């Protein structure tokens, strides 16, 4: 199956699912779970642009995620901004923070880069939970984050909010897909697999990495804002290293280097969290185990497994 065909198939399956879900008569809890999956999917797709496409392993993406959430919360609660405008600003806040962190961190490579992103994110976390308590509400966070009010629709109904989120996911995913396939995306791929060669072809590698990182930050900011709206609440926990770790797990388990992988990873993560969480309070450890096993045996994640199965089922033309 050609790359184009498999991408088309992926879109078909996704759209079919998204259309089917409202008609399944799901209960409130399930709808919340699905909405969580949609929000985290945007986060993971953005993370994938940095890690999977460009090869930058950031351990501090929670910072952009949290900053986006707080931006939306503060702009809507304290300054009564319209939701969509605040949402856009949340994305920009994530992009700007990523650009700032990237300015420093991208001077380094490998583990040094990763550690720097981790350190910056922890700094942000400390600021949010203690130093900037007056603005951020400290460890308690900020409650009262509103839902959008577009076209007079009541988005406080979770079922309606699902539609809002689904549309946003489709748009963000499509943009990510175009980016990956575009000439710009090709350069990023080249940088991931042989940055010396890309430099020798005439491109400023650091600038490209910086832009990719900022775009990834934009996605994280949007996702953080949407999480805030979904839960009516933002907290410093969003900036914690465990959040950064979570999105890393989601992306890896789903399949690094693919467009739809992150969505599958998020679904597995959140579904397991939900189901396992009912059975045992040790679900996080089991998730860690799945992550470790997945890293060893399924380096290409769930997507890799699906691709392998499909390759056997559908022979190449």
């Amino acid at each position, binding site marked *: 199956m050609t790359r184009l065909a498999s991408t088309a198939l992926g879109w078909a399956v996704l759209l079919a699912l998204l259309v089917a879900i409202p008609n399944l008569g799901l209960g409130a809890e399930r709808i919340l779970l699905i909405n969580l999956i949609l929000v985290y999917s945007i986060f993971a797709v953005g993370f994938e642009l940095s890690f999977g496409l460009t090869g930058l392993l950031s351990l501090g993406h929670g910072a952009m995620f949290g900053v986006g959430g707080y931006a939306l919360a503060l702009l809507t609660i304290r300054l009564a901004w319209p939701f969509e405008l605040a949402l856009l600003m949340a994305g920009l806040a994530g992009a700007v923070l990523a650009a700032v962190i990237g300015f420093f961190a991208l001077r380094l490579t490998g583990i040094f880069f990763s550690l720097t992103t981790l350190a910056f994110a922890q700094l942000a976390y400390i600021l949010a939970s203690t130093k900037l308590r007056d603005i951020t509400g400290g460890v308690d966070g900020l409650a009262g984050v509103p839902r959008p009010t577009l076209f007079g629709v009541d988005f406080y109904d979770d079922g309606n909010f699902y539609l809002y989120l689904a549309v946003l996911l489709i748009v963000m995913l499509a943009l990510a897909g175009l980016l990956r396939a575009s000439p710009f995306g090709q350069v990023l791929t080249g940088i991931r697999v042989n940055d010396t060669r890309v430099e020798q072809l005439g491109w400023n590698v650091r600038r490209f990495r910086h832009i990719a990182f900022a775009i990834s930050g934009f996605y994280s900011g949007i996702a953080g804002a949407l999480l805030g709206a979904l839960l009516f609440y933002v907290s410093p926990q969003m900036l914690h290293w465990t959040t950064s770790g979570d999105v890393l797990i989601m992306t890896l388990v789903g399949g690094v280097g693919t467009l739809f992988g992150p969505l599958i990873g998020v679904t597995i993560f959140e579904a397991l969290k939900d189901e396992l969480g009912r059975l045992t309070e040790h679900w996080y450890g089991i998730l*860690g185990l799945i*992550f470790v096993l997945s890293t060893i045996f399924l380096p290409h994640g769930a997507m890799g497994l699906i691709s392998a199965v499909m390759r056997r089922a559908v022979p190449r033309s």
Partner: protein
Amino acid sequence: MSVVIIGLSIGFLLFLLAAGLTLIFGMLGVVNFAHGSLYMVGAYLTYTVFQLTGSFWIALALVPVLGAMLGMIMEMLALRPVYGREHYYQILLTFGFILIIEELVRVFWGLDYKEVNPPAILASPISVLDATISPYRLFVIGFGAAIAGLLFYVLENTRVGIIVRAASVDPETVQVLGLDVGRVRTGVFAFGAGLAALGGAVGAPLFPVELGMGFNIIIDCFIVIIIGGLGSIRGAIVAALLIGMVRAIGYTAAPDWVDFITYSVLIVVLLTRPEGLFGRSRRVA
């Protein structure tokens, strides 16, 4: 005066951890994010051994061995399969270990924090020149210095030590010398893990034994090995004592800002001199 003692004791504790971490990185090119978790396991195990035997000294002897065994299992089961792949796999794996170990600790020991008291003969504070000093801290300093001395001796003067030093510069030397690379790797990782657990045992009477204690200390460890230079034991000692003093001064002068300063220092060091004081050319990690 007491600040100095506190600083030095923290410093030597950090050294125990940093030494293992820097050896593992130097020889295996692996940044063991789970090092803090091994420290935590060491502390919890110390608590349990103490509960069972009533002797801190037995714990001190036994816990490093248990830690080394845990490290051996980790290396053989998880790290070995991914050595050939890109380096970020190792980061991912050791990160995953953190989650698993954290959960295992929760399963076996629960959520509340545990207390480990220093052994009786070291418990009561003594007065020296107007200051009250905990004799346990003096013990930590002495013990840490002894371990440091032992490490130096082994690395400089024994066959094992020379092999480790050579292999940390160029892992292929190990093969040329006719040794099984896999065994050497496992051995180094287990040794590092044992040191971390030993650190946990030594640190248990000093800090509350609780979940998350691993992460609190791992950042300081990273700072130490980066300032000291990845792969350098010499650098680890100097940097550990330095950071220990900074921590001690920080606790007394500005306890609110200690964490913030810690992370800022890490960033500054990473940006200005990532190869550290004694570091060799950077491994591509």
